[in-house]
Structure formats: structure tokens, C-alpha cells
């Protein structure tokens, strides 16, 4: 696993790192018909990024990350439908806060364990929240979801249109801000320290690091970011359904991250883009059998690009440089 950050390496933003943003901006002008898929991809990049922070950098493995996405999504939905709060930024802040808050609470429990136990705890917590969402009909609309979410125009000017222009730009800007923050964090001593915990926890203890507290900090941050992604999802689709809390989403995001490449920030950009586009295209061609294609893609990546797509690119560029 190539690791970014640390004391030995520089932290300048490389040319390649500007590329995703150029692509995203170009997509806005060149592919106006794909903006709703585009927004979905941006949201999942944000979501995957939050997972990379805890899995790739801190080594926390989870199958329940959907909880935080779901909480964010429902926060926005409930605020709008039940409390009549339609301000996008208020919803955003509330979603982040609720996501982070729940992250802190569950993290306090989950982070005391490791490996499979940890995985199962995250999964079970997510499953319970799913049941809560299902049963708390009066608040969440149960299995029918919460339709009719309203969001005020951004700055009172830009309406969330059904073509998705506003939504796309909005998601892009939010993603950019979060990315900037995450990137700084990864390259900071905090990021290096997280890598240390992942690599060798016992040693980290002996260096005087209160490991548990540190993990709790990053878990909370990650949950907050996932909450933001959830809010964006609700705001751009103007409805919430139980599926945002589902095991499938938690599995999907894990797959997207590993597909892109773990522990390197940009894996979270590449993974969702490839996965969602492949899914979308295949589902279009073969509505019944798309899953075969997606599965095949994953197998190809595992056997020919260990370390995800970015891992493969690394390997190829190393080859080229050598010869």
C-alpha cells in the first residue's frame, strides 16, 4: 500500500491531484444530461472519502458506515418535512453534527474491539438503526420513506432544479471543501499518527499515544463527513428512503473504496466513479444481469490490480519509468 503523508515525504499538491476537479468541471459543461448521475457520484465520493479516513488511515474496518449516511439523510429529510426547516446549510450543519454525534457514541463502543468483532458490531448497530428507521413510522415514514423534502434555493437564488445543475455544483463545492480539509489532515502529524495506529497499535501505545481517544476523534470526523454526504443525497433527490441505512450501501461503499485503492484519498475518487458508471451503464444494457458485469469488474481488479485501480496505475507507471 502506498502511503501518502508522513514526515519523510513532501505534501505539495501535485498536478495529478488537480485532475479530478478539472474532470468534474468539464463534465458539468460537456455532459449536462448526466448531471444527476454526476451528483450521485460526487456524493458517493464524499461518502467513500469518509470511509477511507477510518479504514485506509486508521485501519478500522466497518460494514455499518451506512448509518452515518442514513442519519445525515434523515436529518435533512425530517428537518424539512417535519420541522419545516428548508435551509440547505442549516440542514448540512445539522446532518454533520448528528452524524458526528452518533459516530462519537457508537465509536466509544465499537473502537474498544478489533477485526471481526468490530466489523460485526458496526454491522449490528447499522441493522438496529435500520429497524428503528423502519419502526419509527411517525418520524421516518417507515418503509415508505419521506417524500416531499423541500430545500430552499441556495443563497436564495439558485433553485434545486430537476435537471440537477444546482445540485451538481453544490455537491462539487461541498466535496471540494471537505477534500481540502481531509487532505490537510492526512498529511498532518495527525494523519501520520493514524497510519501508525493502523500499522502497529502496540507500538503506538508505547510511544505515549492514547490510541482509543485518537481513534474516537477520527471516527467522529468520518461520521460527520458521511452525515454531510447523506444530507446531500436527500437534498438532491428530495426524498429519503430506508435504503440509505441498508447493509447494501455499507457494502457498496466498502467495495468502491477497495476498488479505487485504500489509504490514498484518490482511491475514494476513482472507486465510486468507476463503480457507479459501470453499474449505471450495465444496468442500462442488462437490467436483469448487470450484477454479473459489476462482479466481473471486481474480480478483474482483484486479480490484476491488487491495491485497487490506483494501485495498478502505480505499478504501470513504475514499469514505464524503469524501462
Amino acid at each position: 500500500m502506498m502511503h501518502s503523508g508522513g514526515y519523510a515525504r513532501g505534501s505539495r499538491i501535485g498536478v495529478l491531484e488537480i485532475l479530478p476537479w478539472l474532470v468534474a468541471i468539464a463534465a458539468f459543461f460537456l455532459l449536462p444530461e448526466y448531471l444527476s448521475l454526476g451528483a450521485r457520484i460526487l456524493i458517493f465520493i464524499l461518502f467513500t472519502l469518509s470511509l477511507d479516513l477510518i479504514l485506509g488511515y486508521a485501519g478500522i474496518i466497518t460494514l455499518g458506515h451506512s448509518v452515518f449516511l442514513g442519519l445525515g439523510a434523515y436529518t435533512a429529510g425530517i428537518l424539512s418535512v417535519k420541522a419545516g426547516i428548508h435551509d440547505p446549510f442549516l440542514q448540512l450543519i445539522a446532518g454533520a453534527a448528528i452524524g458526528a454525534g452518533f459516530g462519537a457514541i457508537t465509536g466509544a463502543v465499537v473502537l474498544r474491539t478489533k477485526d471481526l468483532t468490530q466489523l460485526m458490531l458496526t454491522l449490528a448497530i447499522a441493522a438496529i438503526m435500520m429497524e428503528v428507521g423502519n419502526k419509527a413510522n411517525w418520524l421516518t415514514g417507515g418503509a415508505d420513506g419521506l417524500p416531499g423534502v423541500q430545500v430552499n434555493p441556495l443563497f436564495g437564488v439558485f433553485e434545486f432544479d430537476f435537471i440537477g445543475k444546482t445540485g451538481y455544483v453544490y455537491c462539487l463545492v461541498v466535496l471540494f471543501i471537505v477534500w481540502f480539509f481531509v487532505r490537510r489532515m492526512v498529511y498532518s502529524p495527525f494523519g501520520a499518527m493514524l497510519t501508525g495506529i493502523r500499522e502497529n497499535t502496540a507500538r503506538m501505545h508505547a510511544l505515549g499515544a492514547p490510541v482509543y481517544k485518537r481513534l474516537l476523534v477520527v471516527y467522529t470526523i468520518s461520521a460527520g463527513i458521511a452525515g454531510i454526504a447523506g444530507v446531500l443525497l436527500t437534498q438532491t433527490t428530495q426524498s429519503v428512503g430506508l435504503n440509505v441505512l441498508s447493509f447494501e450501501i455499507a457494502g457498496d461503499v466498502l467495495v468502491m473504496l477497495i476498488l479505487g485503492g485504500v489509504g490514498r484519498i484518490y482511491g475514494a475518487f476513482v472507486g465510486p466513479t468507476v463503480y457507479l458508471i459501470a453499474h449505471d451503464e450495465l444496468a442500462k444494457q442488462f437490467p436483469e444481469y448487470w450484477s454479473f458485469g459489476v462482479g466481473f469488474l471486481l474480480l478483474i481488479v482483484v486479480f490484476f490490480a491488487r491495491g485497487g485501480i490506483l494501485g495498478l496505475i502505480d505499478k504501470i507507471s513504475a514499469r514505464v519509468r524503469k524501462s
Partner: protein
Amino acid sequence: MQAFLSSLVSVLFHGVAYGMILYVISVGLSVTMGLMGFVNLAHGVFAMAGGLLLSTAMGRYGVPFPLALLLAFVVVAVASVVLERLLYSKLYSAGELPQVLFTMGLIFMSIAVARYLYGTQAAPLFLPDYLKGQIPLFGRDFPTFRVVLIIFSGLIVAALWFGVERTRWGAMVRAAVDNRDMAQSVGINTNRLFMLTFALGSGLAGLGGALGSDILPVQSTYPLENLVYFMIVVAVGGLGSLSGPFIAALLIGIADTATKYWLPELGAFLIYAATIAVLLWRPQGLFGVRS
């Protein structure tokens, strides 16, 4: 009181039947995940294959039930060896993440294949007449098939414990997982060991999938839908143990049945809450071999 006792008997009965099935399917996962350290999320694929085989063999070719069961075991075991040699074995030392990605891919593909071959409906289970009907016991009726199912699974469990747990096989697998090179350096043919272990685990899943298609209907999305339950059994039971998952599966089966009978409103709450409680109490599971 009388009524309560008699419903208790039913709950226990159905709970045990469910638990037994969960166990036969999941024990293989406990082996691949616990002993071999392979995060095999695709375990349910083998169970599904077993169920589909049984249904096809009986429905389409009129194979008698016991033979069809055997077939489900053997065919799935053999097929799994092919997969193991070609794909799984390449990832033993690759770490969890590639394993997750690979087995998820396998799930996705198998869903599409099953869909293509068997359509969208659940594979029907046509029981022979001697397994239909009910057996009256303690003043209540018990479906014959489930009685047979409990007895048969019980036999499998016994065979496993006597055949496997008492040999040094388990220790060899764990040694090979701890350190493949060193295990080979003390003379263990790790490739063959893993292959056979994997085949046994998958074959059992196939058998369980076939046997349990009455309780867990088999259809194309089976591997994904039931994954969580299999994983709970393994985690609560304790990785790498054979008896732990047995207890866990029975507990889950009975708890699930009891909530459905007495507190259907709770849904799956109880199971998950209990899972969390057990794991906080004993992070390595009830009978975990590894921490």
C-alpha cells in the same frame, strides 16, 4: 400455563430446526474465516448452489431426496475446489480487503448466473410424501420434515466433532494461516490442506442450503440476503471453533423464533442487540479460538 408450556415446546422445536440449518451452513464459514483467515463473504453462494441443485435434481430429474442431498454436498464440494484452486488460493495471503472485494464480486456474479438459470422465483422444494405431514408428540403436531431435519443435522454435527475437532487438522490449518512459509517449513502441504478444508466447508454449506431450502428459501439473491446471519453465527460463536457456532446458531434460531412468536413487533431488534451484547462481553465470541 399449559398453553404457555405447549407454545414453548413449539418455539423450541422450530428454533432448533432453524438453528441447525444455520449451523450446517455457517460452520464452513467458521472454518474458512476462522481457521483459514479468509473473509469469505461469498459463502452463501455455496449454500445457494446446494439448494438449487437439490431443487433441480428432484424437480427436473426425479432424483430421490436422499440422493439429491448427497449430490448437493458432493457437487458443491467439487465445484468449490475448482474455485479454490483457480481463484481463492491466490488470495490467501493478500489480506482482508482484496478478499472482501473478490468475494463480493463472486456474489454479484453468482446472483446474475442464478437469475439467468433459475429466474426470479424461489427454487421449489418438492418433498417426497414420507416427509410430508406431521408427527404428533407431547400433544402437539410437528412437521415431519423438520423433525428429520433436526435429526439429520444432529448427525452431521456429531460426525464433524468426532471426525475433525479431535485430530490435529485444526491446529495445522491455524499454523498454516499464522505463517504459511513456516508451516511449510515444518512439512505441512498447505495447498492441499487448504483445498480439502475449503471443500469440506463449502460442501457443508451446499448441504445446509439444500436441507434448509424450506426455512431459507433459495433464490438468486440468497447469498447477499443471508450473509449477515451467517456472519453473526460465526462471530458470536467464535472464529475457528466448531462447537461455538453450534451454540450460537441454536441461540439465534430460538431467539428469532421466540420473538416472532411472542413479540413480533420487535422484529430483528433482539437478535442484533444480543449480538452486540455478546460481542461486548466476549469479543472473541463465545468459544473463539483466536482473539
